[in-house]
């Protein structure tokens, strides 16, 4: 009996080496992508080798303390806010049953469709001194009424918490859903009151997921550029932008970036740890557990709370955007708008296809080489999601500009001809930055589909005489189609609403919708920014619908 499995393994090894002729080619490819991701990080780290001390001194005297305090406030506040909102909403819709629970459960993801900077300017428009809310309240209660100032640290934290809570919500909801009421019952059978059970069992059991969501929020908060710049709330990202485009000092931008990278690096390590814990904790849970049926007044309280958050975080802002858009539609819907839309669509489409293709290659590489080297290279290749767009823009621009100059010098010295820059002023820089930043989104979608193409499916196909291109076309591609589609959609939408990379690396004449929003909102023209914002919102709804259909299937 024993030789049989060994024989089979041998046969499949031979089969695979025939199918993919040079296995090391896959590893080379993964290595190149990993190198692409490591380049901006390395370049930024190297900025410390030649620190511009005068700039540092200037920064330290004027800016650094405020940057640190602001960033810390933002990070602590937004993390706290999203945890409060995300965990409470996730537990209600994940483990409990109350009127409207089914619809609310996906509707509460809708804020994901609205870029943070869009929610921000709508909030300012709504709640500013001249906005409709304050005007209305003053007309009711007189001029003397005290209103909290929206343009404050509290305002930024509030808006960003409302925009980012879905990250915590989404992960924690899955955890609570598999727990159901069983965990709480087990605690009660061991002498805990329901409240004790919640804090001793329900929350700790979901901790890896909650923390996972919180790290994503932290990364988003650190990376955010649009929202804080609308608030004029200086953080590292806005400082990097100003250093480059205000003081025209790329080295200063690089040095500020390197500080941010160090912070992000810590987060990455924490997040990877958490992912491992999630895998363990999930092993023995029922896929869908029975819910706690809320009784009496509690169910209406739960229902009301969920609706309130949905109303504030999505419905009201979306309605306001619609109202503004209708008001300015005649004035703003013109060839300029269509031009911006065209640029956004074109960039999103090109990068979606590019990233899906590279992600597919990476995923195949991982399949052919399950070893540690390839897996490590793949993990490195998909780390870019953690890099803030402003940092990436600086980290990509520096080496490419250097490369350009090398080429120009080479041409002048050896060929005797004057060359124009090859890469600067083209969309190549932008695409490369997108590739690094959004690789993870595309890869995850495709790789999870790839996991369904097990080696026994290959073997079954081979027994029926399918191999090579036929195997790819008739078995692999149909099985991967869903994943590829998801990857294309996710990347498409991410690029559509991306702001800092586009803003900082776009060639002349390549304004997009998000760049236009930045320009208009920095002048306080909320109404005029509504049409491009609404366009982004609509495109952002597509992945939410995908996510919704996926969770319905589960």
């Amino acid at each position, binding site marked *: 009996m024993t030789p049989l499995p060994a024989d089979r393994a041998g046969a499949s090894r031979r089969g695979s080496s025939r199918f993919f002729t040079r296995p090391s080619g896959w590893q080379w490819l993964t290595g190149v992508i990993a190198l692409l991701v490591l380049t901006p990080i390395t370049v930024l780290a190297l900025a410390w080798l030649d620190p511009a001390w005068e700039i540092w001194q200037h920064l330290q005297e004027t800016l650094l303390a405020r940057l640190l305090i602001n960033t810390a406030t933002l990070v602590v506040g937004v993390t706290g806010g999203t945890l409060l909102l995300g965990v409470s909403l996730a537990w209600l819709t994940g483990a409990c049953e109350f009127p409207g629970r089914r619809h609310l459960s996906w509707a509460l993801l809708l804020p994901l469709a609205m870029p943070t900077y869009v929610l921000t300017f709508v909030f300012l428009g709504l709640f500013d001194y001249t906005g409709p809310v304050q005007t209305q309240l003053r007309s009711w209660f007189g001029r003397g009424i005290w209103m909290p100032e929206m343009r404050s640290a509290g305002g930024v934290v509030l808006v960003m918490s409302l925009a980012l809570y879905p990250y915590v919500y989404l992960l924690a909801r899955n955890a609570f859903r598999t727990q159901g009421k*069983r965990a709480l019952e087990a605690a009660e*059978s061991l002498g805990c009151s329901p409240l004790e059970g919640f804090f001793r069992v329900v929350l700790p059991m979901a901790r890896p997921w909650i923390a996972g969501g919180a790290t994503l929020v932290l990364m988003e908060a650190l990376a955010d550029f649009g929202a804080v710049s609308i608030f004029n709330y200086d953080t590292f990202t806005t400082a990097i932008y100003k250093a480059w485009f205000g003081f025209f000092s790329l080295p200063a931008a690089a040095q500020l970036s390197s500080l941010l990278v160090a912070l992000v690096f810590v987060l990455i390590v924490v997040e990877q740890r958490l992912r491992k814990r999630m895998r*363990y904790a999930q*092993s*023995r849970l029922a896929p869908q557990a029975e819910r706690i049926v809320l009784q009496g007044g509690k169910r209406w309280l739960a229902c009301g709370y969920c609706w309130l958050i949905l109303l504030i975080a999505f419905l009201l802002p979306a309605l306001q955007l619609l109202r503004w858009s209708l008001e300015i539609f005649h004035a703003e819907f013109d060839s300029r708008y269509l031009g911006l839309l065209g640029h956004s669509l074109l960039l999103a489409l090109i990068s979606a296809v590019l990233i899906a293709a590279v992600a597919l290659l990476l995923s195949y590489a991982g399949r052919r080489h399950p070893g540690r080297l390839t897996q490590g290279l793949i993990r490195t290749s998909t780390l870019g999601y953690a890099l803030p767009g402003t940092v990436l823009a600086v980290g990509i621009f520096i080496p490419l500009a250097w490369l350009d100059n090398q080429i120009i010098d080479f041409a002048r010295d050896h060929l005797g001809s004057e060359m124009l820059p090859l890469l600067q002023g083209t969309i190549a820089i932008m695409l490369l930055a997108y590739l690094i930043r959004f690789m993870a989104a595309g890869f995850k979608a495709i790789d999870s589909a790839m996991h369904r193409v097990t080696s026994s499916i290959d073997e079954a196909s081979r027994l029926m005489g399918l191999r090579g291109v036929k195997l790819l076309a008739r078995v692999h591609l149909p099985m991967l189609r869903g994943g590829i589609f998801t990857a294309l959609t996710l990347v498409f939408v991410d690029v559509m609403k991306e702001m800092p990379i586009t803003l900082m690396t776009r060639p002349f004449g390549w304004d997009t919708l998000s760049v236009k929003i930045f320009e208009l909102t920095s002048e306080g023209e909320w109404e005029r920014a509504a049409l491009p914002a609404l366009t982004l919102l609509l495109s952002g709804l597509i992945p939410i619908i995908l996510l919704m259909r996926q969770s319905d299937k589960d």
Partner: protein
Amino acid sequence: MEPLLELQQISQAYGPQLVVKDLSLSLKKGEIGCLLGASGCGKTTVLRTIAGFEPLLQGEIRLNGTVVSRAGFSLPPAKRQIGMVFQDYALFPHLSIFDNVAFGLRKLDKTELIRRVNQALELVGLQTELNKYPHEISGGQQQRVALARALAPEPQLLLMDEPFSNLDVTLRERLSMEVRDILKEFGTTALFVTHNQNEAFAVADRIGVMHSGEILQWDSAHNLYHQPVSPRIAEFVGEGALINGVVKNAGQLETGLGLLEGIIKRPLEVGSPVQLLVRPEDVVHDDASPVKAVVVRRSFRGASILYALRLANGDLVQALVPSHCDHQPGEKIGIQPDVRHLVLFPADA
């Protein structure tokens, strides 16, 4: 002595649908009871109601003489001193084995707590796995941790919901014996539900056969097998078949197996048609016998073969025959009835 657990005519509903109807049972201290039935018969609901997770529609549940549940009142689960082993064990994945078992003991001081946890883990044979986490141990070990965790606070009553259903067959058999020994050693009163007769027989002192929310018979394993109160129980418990018969006189029965003699417990009129329960071991293979039957189906079981046989009058019986007597479907073989108790039901029942 007053029973430790007493259910008095309890009823339970999910919406308009009654899932438990007028159900009564009682367990003495130290007894192990079992609710046996197919899935959906309401047995888990009964268990969850006793634990205090479901409100009661009608009736009363008393624990040690005190009412813990009645319509409109339910003592919180935490105050009932009832332990529970869940079907999926519900071990806390974020706690070590030690902490899982210690979970219900936190009111004790530290040395006492350590002593009790160790005692409980020793009882289930896992004292060396203290520092592992639930995902690091096997399914059988998880089951034992769940048992230790439920027993550690020394509950008045232990409830177990399908405790062995997640285990593979060989482990299931061994663990069910072990669990009985552990419960008896601890002197724990316990009630568990299962759909598996072998488990019920191996573990329980008293078994209630449940069907659509009612207990059809609450009895010892021996009595369920040998003195079922209805044809449904006769068919549900153990193997065997019901064949037609006619009462000849006070001690005789005319059937397809010939004239059978025995005690007829029910008062039945002479000449009335009845159904007789025939277990596989009641039919003996005997080539010399005048009674012949045709082999319809055979299933080889190693030491013996279980034959399904058709009698001359068309009735089907089963026979457990040593496996060296090998016959193929279609063959005619001689059989001899060896029926000790005549288990009879009126033919229209």
